[in-house]
């Protein structure tokens, strides 16, 4: 059985995420980010940010929802129970602050087979309410025994 490649180039509808201060706090606490700029809006403003700022990897919180429909799409055909997250890349732009509205669009970049495993590569592009790019992600999922 071979991987299906019809979904390469497909783009899914954008998903929006409202960045609340409480979500930034909760994320910063979970990953051990103790820098005051992630916990105190005044400290963030003093450091030159518009408001409470999010750690760079908070991008997974606001961009992952756009990836869900892509990974579950029958046209992509990922066998979910045997899927593993193989690799991840992010390129950051404008910092994300509390009060931002982030919109993320996901697309399928590549599907290929190597050594009996299927590689599914997705790209996500996230922008804020001003249209500025906040992050671009490359998500690689691997499925064994395709």
């Amino acid at each position: 059985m071979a991987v299906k490649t019809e979904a390469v180039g497909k783009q899914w509808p954008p998903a929006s995420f409202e960045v609340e201060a409480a979500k930034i706090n909760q994320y910063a606490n979970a990953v051990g980010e103790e820098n005051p700029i992630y916990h105190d809006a005044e400290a963030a403003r003093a450091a030159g940010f518009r408001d409470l700022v999010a750690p760079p990897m908070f991008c997974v919180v606001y961009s992952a929802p756009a990836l869900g429909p892509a990974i579950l799409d029958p046209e992509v055909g990922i066998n979910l129970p045997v899927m593993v997250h193989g690799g991840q890349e992010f390129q950051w732009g404008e910092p994300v602050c509390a009060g931002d509205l982030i919109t993320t669009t996901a697309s399928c970049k590549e599907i290929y087979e190597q050594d009996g495993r299927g590689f599914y590569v997705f790209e996500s592009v996230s922008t804020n309410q001003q249209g500025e790019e906040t992050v671009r992600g490359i998500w690689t999922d691997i499925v064994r025994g395709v």
Partner: protein
Amino acid sequence: MSDFKQGDSLPELRVTPDAGLTKRYAEASGDPNPIHTDPEFAKSVGLPGVILHGLYSMAQVARAHTEAAAGDPRALKRLSVQFRGMGFPEQEIVVTTTVKEAGDGRLVTDTVAAQGDNRIIRNAEAELELD
């Protein structure tokens, strides 16, 4: 900060995720996969127990970089990782970063995150811009 040169190390980061971490990270990140939170489920799919979220471990690599840049999240321009070994709660993670290239206020680094001999992230490459 801009004193880093090729071959230097960034300050090492050490963190030990406690037994409740994967649940807190699952709630904070919105990743509900029970292999990270339910020991019985994890065992039912052949794992020794719950495993860390790969993106949690990646966040530790990111944190090692922003802390090296005086805590400025704007310094981290790019981070690319490959997830290899599985990470486990209640074991110390050591994040070790080496400068591969340095020049014009910009560093390119190579990072390994390991629990003992188990390298959970390897070939991580980051770009850091420094004032």
